[in-house]
């Protein structure tokens, strides 16, 4: 019992939430206004730059039988348009597919960049302690921002498609008059809660995966033995493979649900 309390004390020193946290890396001054760029913001910028370079590079060949990077990007785009977009959005799929593709590639690249321990690679190469890496989607504000974009995309496209009053009227199905206020209130709450669940789902999945990896690595610090280190490294490898799967699945779920919410807005479901 005493040994367990001692080990609990040592375990309390290594914080598994540490690698997920957002820390400022540099500050940009606009005159007297200060913008503190955190490591998550840096990762978002890095993912955006990577996509802005890689996707036009993939679209450059434009051959009928795609090979290489064009084949990879085109397969994903065709899958998203035919299997995800067309059953949900039907005839409007080509209008909204740009948004769907952007969301998928952005969330996927953020999730995959989180698996690369950039700050530790930079520390290995330069010898300086830094924070230029981290899981960007492990930040509720990043996923909240993505969900807000989905909310506005769905609402604005619904209002543009149906007109403002028709959009609001089609939120609730036909029902007896005495239940309409309750039903309408539920639909309004649903309208705001759905993007919130998008944000929380993505955030919690990525955070849980990274906390698991950090906990397994922390076990090496607690026990300080070679056998535990071997088992821990093997467990971290296995959990990292699971996390790669979760990265793909969560990006796909985010995209599917975004397309679904846009579909609910533009094609009245009731």
């Amino acid at each position: 019992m005493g040994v367990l309390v001692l080990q609990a004390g040592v375990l309390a020193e290594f914080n598994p939430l540490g690698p997920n946290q957002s820390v400022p890396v540099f500050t940009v001054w606009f005159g007297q206004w200060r913008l503190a760029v955190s490591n998550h913001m840096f990762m978002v910028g890095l993912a955006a730059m990577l996509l802005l370079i890689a996707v036009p590079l993939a679209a450059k060949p434009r051959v009928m039988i795609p090979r290489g990077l064009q084949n990879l990007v085109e397969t994903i785009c065709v899958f998203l348009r035919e299997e995800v977009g067309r059953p949900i959005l039907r005839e409007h799929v080509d209008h909204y597919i740009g948004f769907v593709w952007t969301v998928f590639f952005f969330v996927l690249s953020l999730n995959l960049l989180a698996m690369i321990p950039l700050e530790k690679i930079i520390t290995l190469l330069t010898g300086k302690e830094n924070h230029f890496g981290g899981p960007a989607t492990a930040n509720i504000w990043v996923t909240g921002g993505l969900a807000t974009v989905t909310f506005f995309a769905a609402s604005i496209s619904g209002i543009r498609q149906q007109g403002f009053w028709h959009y609001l009227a089609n939120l609730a199905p036909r029902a007896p008059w005495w239940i309409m206020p309750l039903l309408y209130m539920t639909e309004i709450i649903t309208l705001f809660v759905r993007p919130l669940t998008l944000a929380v789902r993505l955030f919690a999945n990525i955070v849980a995966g990274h906390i698991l990896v950090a906990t397994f690595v922390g076990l090496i610090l607690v026990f300080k033995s070679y056998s535990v280190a071997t088992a821990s490294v093997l467990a971290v490898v296995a959990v990292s493979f699971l996390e790669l799967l979760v990265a793909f699945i969560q990006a796909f779920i985010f995209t599917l649900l975004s397309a679904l919410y846009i579909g609910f807005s533009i094609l009245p479901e009731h």
Partner: protein
Amino acid sequence: MVFMSGSMLAATGTSTSGLVALAVALGCAASLLAAAMGIGWIGSRAVESIARQPEAGSRIFTTMVIAGALIEGVTFFSLLICFLVLYWLK
């Protein structure tokens, strides 16, 4: 294991923090139980339906993965609420 850690906190901290830890652990355990049952049910029905109609296998597999991810999302909501309880009632 979770009961031991809860009672350990009760021995070292104030009298309420042990109860909070126990509540958090029980909440996590209950939601994990529900999620495991739900995903297991979906998995078994998916395997049954693929056995009935093998040519629909890939569509059924995609649907199963989507439903599994959605159930996991609900589980993570409860995990987040447990974390919030743990860090608010400090």
